[in-house]
């Protein structure tokens, strides 16, 4: 019998397999994204402006000292209670007449804030405060706002505010009316506007 070479394996489809794998990895690999607390800094005004008049009771003062201890409205406070305390302040609704708040569920204490729209949280820290503590305080304060917004969003639209914002950010996947959603988000934001004021840190 004549010598016969073994038939070569057909490699034509190898490229297809390679591309299949390539596309698989392309689709499944996600490059990690950073996340964090977003803030808007106040612009610098050249001319000296008088600060708008604010009633003492509409300001919620949070002081952080260099050891990371909190002084909230002249009382020492544990960080774990900060969120509840801030919520109580924002949700107080002690205003009368024009300043009344018809969606607040707070105690209506005349010594605390009139209306969430007027309420300002003032945060002041020392130059020696640790950044970690500062972030924790920021986080707790933002959480207080988020929880109140969620409550109102649930009452008015039957879903969480955070879920609404998430839908708005993934516009492509949302099958409802995007304009309406935006309007609803703005409504909730106007009910509990985030008014966080930061003073220049004190030198001690």
């Amino acid at each position: 019998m004549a010598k016969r070479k073994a038939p070569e394996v057909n490699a034509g489809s190898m490229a297809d397999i390679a591309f299949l794998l390539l596309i698989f990895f392309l689709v499944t690999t996600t490059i990690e994204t950073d996340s964090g607390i977003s803030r808007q800094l106040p612009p610098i005004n050249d001319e000296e402006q008088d600060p708008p008049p604010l009633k003492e009771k509409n300001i919620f003062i949070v002081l952080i000292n260099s050891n990371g201890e909190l002084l909230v409205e002249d009382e020492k406070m544990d960080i774990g209670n900060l969120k509840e305390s801030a919520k109580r302040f924002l949700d107080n609704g002690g205003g009368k007449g024009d300043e009344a708040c018809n969606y607040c569920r707070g105690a209506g204490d005349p010594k605390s804030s009139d209306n969430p729209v007027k309420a300002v949280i003032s945060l002041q820290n020392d130059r020696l405060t640790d950044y970690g503590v500062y972030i924790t305080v920021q986080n707790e304060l933002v959480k207080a706002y988020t929880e109140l917004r969620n409550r109102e969003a649930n009452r008015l639209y039957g879903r969480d505010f955070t879920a609404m914002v998430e839908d708005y950010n993934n516009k492509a996947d949302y099958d409802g009316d995007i304009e309406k959603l935006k309007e609803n988000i703005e409504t909730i934001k106007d009910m509990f506007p985030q008014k966080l004021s930061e003073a220049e840190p004190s030198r001690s």
Partner: protein
Amino acid sequence: MSKFKKKKGGDTPAISTASLPDIVFMLLFFFMVVTVLRDTSIKVQQDLPYADQVEKLEKKNLVMYVYAGKPSKRYQSQFGDEARIQLNDKFASVNDIQQFIYEERQSKREELRNLLITSLKVDQETNMGLISDIKQELREAEALKINYTTKEGDALQNMN
């Protein structure tokens, strides 16, 4: 008998290498995709604090990074262990921030310039004094959108 003879004498067929380029290209593409090009090597300690009220920084090309923290162990003999700012690849002082922001802005297309966000990647043991100085410089450079970049987790962990 002849059957067995034939096998002994036959030379082994060469494995086809025609598909080798495909495999190599596949690997190449894969690594091209998953590799995050890091144009900066971080020279400061980066133990970011935890927070859970976070927003994602989606558009990477619109983010300017400002790092701060104590110099890493191997730079401590040279730069001390006082918290420092790092911009791009080198240590910088507070006064360099404005220049850095302007340069970053120049490198972007005009319509994107006011969408830029500054990401502050700061070690959690840094003093707030340094961060306030950075924020003041950013205000002066009119880079008002900032993001305190954090790890996701319960914020109360930072207190320990």
